[in-house]
């Protein structure tokens, strides 16, 4: 076991899969010599050669199309989009093509591609870098969307994503890259896609969340504990398809729930989760299910970012409304 940051766990997962499967290819802007702008691919080109780990010209649409083509030739591409705010350039490749490859070929072809990409607020990037766009990709049938919240989860989920035979969007929250270390096994292990993890058990309220908001929610749970509330925190880990079973089991136990996401409120993941809870567990609910989200503007210019982003105080406030309903 080693103490790893999330970025180290990600590099480690890539190394494991590059070793395991000769068809795995890692590519993107600056992933080679430079090891990626966050050093997620540090040392990989040196270890596996330029055939397996290589820089691309600067074009996200090209990167997406290249991945699809390489997959048609039997490779298992793991491209990087340098920041997820640039994904709009590759949306046809991703939502228009990759997501539909199996479907439109009647199962003859597939796109076992894992797109890795940093995103997320709190690190004061320029525009179009930090946007929470998971809802946009989750809206496209054919794609899976994964967002880890810890180094341990990141490694196991990334290995599963690469082995998955369908396209997976693997989103890495920039604030979590180096914010803490955790014991991570050096050997390979997998965490199944589509399985949530109860990060904290509780009896009075369920917080359903993912990504960096898992940590805000855990902090909120501690605050609420001081006031005598026992709060459960469910980390989805896979945002689409998400683990309805675990969510419902938690809600049926606690009778109260809130959903916390970093993204804007409009048409986001939280709405989808609330709808599923209402569909399946309405009779177990003692209170309406509320949401904690960012407001409905474009991701904040960096100077107001701290206020714009939801934090544990917002979680506490909303949790109390539901607890006191």
């Amino acid at each position, binding site marked *: 076991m080693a103490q790893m940051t999330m970025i180290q766990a990600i590099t480690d997962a890539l190394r494991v899969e590059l070793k395991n499967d000769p068809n795995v290819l890692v590519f993107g*802007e*600056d992933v*080679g*010599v*430079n*090891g990626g*702008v966050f050093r997620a691919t540090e040392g990989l080109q040196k270890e596996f050669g330029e055939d397996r780990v290589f*820089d691309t*010209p*600067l*074009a996200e*649409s*090209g990167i997406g199309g290249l991945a699809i083509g390489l997959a048609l030739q039997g490779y298992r591409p793991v491209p990087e989009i340098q920041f997820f*705010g*640039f994904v*709009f*350039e590759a949306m046809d490749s991703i939502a228009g093509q990759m997501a539909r490859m199996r479907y439109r070929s009647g199962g003859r072809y597939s796109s076992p591609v894992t797109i890795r990409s940093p995103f997320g607020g709190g690190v*004061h*990037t*320029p*525009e*179009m*870098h930090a946007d929470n766009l998971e809802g946009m990709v989750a809206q496209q049938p054919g794609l899976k969307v994964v967002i880890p919240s810890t180094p341990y989860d990141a490694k196991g989920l990334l290995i599963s994503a690469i082995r998955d035979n369908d396209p997976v969007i693997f989103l890495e929250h920039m604030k979590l890259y180096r914010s803490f270390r955790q014991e991570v096994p050096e050997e390979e292990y997998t965490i199944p896609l589509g399985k949530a993890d109860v990060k904290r058990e509780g009896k009075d309220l369920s917080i359903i969340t993912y990504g960096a908001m898992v940590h805000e929610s855990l902090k909120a749970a501690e605050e609420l504990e001081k006031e005598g509330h026992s709060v459960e925190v469910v980390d989805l880990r896979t945002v689409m398809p998400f683990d309805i079973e675990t969510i419902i089991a938690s809600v049926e136990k606690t009778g109260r729930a809130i959903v916390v996401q970093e993204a804007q*409120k*409009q048409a986001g993941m939280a709405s989808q989760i609330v709808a599923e809870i209402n569909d399946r567990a309405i009779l177990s609910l003692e209170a309406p299910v509320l949401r904690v989200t960012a*407001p*409905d*503007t*474009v991701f*904040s*210019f*960096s*100077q*107001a*970012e701290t*206020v*714009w982003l939801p934090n544990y105080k917002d979680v506490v406030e909303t949790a109390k409304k539901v607890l006191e309903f």
Partner: protein
Amino acid sequence: MASKTKNNTIDAKKQLENIESQFEMFQILNEEGEVVNEAAMPELSDEQLQELMTRMVYTRILDQRSISLNRQGRLGFYAPTAGQEASQIASQFALEKEDFILPGYRDVPQIIWHGLPLTQAFLFSRGHFKGNQIPEGVNVISPQIIIGAQYVQAAGVALGMKKRGAQAVAVTYTGDGGSSQGDFYEGINFAGAYKAPAIFFVQNNRFAISTPVEKQTAAQTIAQKAVAAGIPGIQVDGMDPLAVYAVTLEARQRAVNGEGPTLIETMTYRYGPHTMAGDDPTRYRTSDLDNEWEKKDPLVRFRKFLEKKNLWTEEMENETIERAKEEIKIAIKEADDTPKQKVTDLMEIMYDEMPDNLKEQYEIYKEKESK
């Protein structure tokens, strides 16, 4: 089964050589500040020559100050410009006020010289929307973050100018990396198809973050990409302010005469890191290469040229440096004095009319931000 080919219908070598041979780098001033192309010398008055030098010196100081302000945490996002002054400043110097600039993130100097107040450049760096609120009468848009997006938009601005019958051009900038984007090709192709008055710059500083231009494309020059769009292209010494000025002026002339767009590749180098957010050029560049390019420095070369003509003195240089420092200090103070950006400000600039969901959230954030 396909049969064997009998003959080479394409002489690949000859075809490419024919194209490449047309794109030799255009130069007027060599590294020693000597005029090597008298015939192409632009008609600039002594005062204009001095003004061009003044602006380059000023911009070098602005770069140095911006880097140290960033290190002190007093500026945010910043992409260093030292080394690229001739490409940036001399190209803008050939424009008229009514020309419209669509810059990339590194092209802040051009829009400052086109009229953007320094204070706003600093607010842009700090991630304050007021930095992007371009004053009336200043024909620029704030720097583009999405590489290539400005290129297609430039075709639209240019077509609009043509439809209005304006005697003006749309001018846009990207880098060697940017010339790989689909938007790059779409932009030059659209402008060509409409014969729209646009000038497309590619500042080829040899690297896109860490990726060398050799990995970006098989094309020997970026200028030759113009051929496929059916528009003229030229490669110019981007460390030579007179050459950059001359080709920009000519491209502008052609554009306003209704002869369509031009692609200009300026051969240049950024001395500093890609941005101030943790890039380490020693991971991908050698100091030999740095030294080779620093010898071509645009300020050194232009200073030599002007000194020989008795048009530049140490005094003038120092005066410019002092003025730059003073104005930067004032602008930073103004940026400091600008009211902090609020989430409610962002809500106000989302739509023409605020929709109900935002109105509701507005009240919540107003309350939050008044505490």
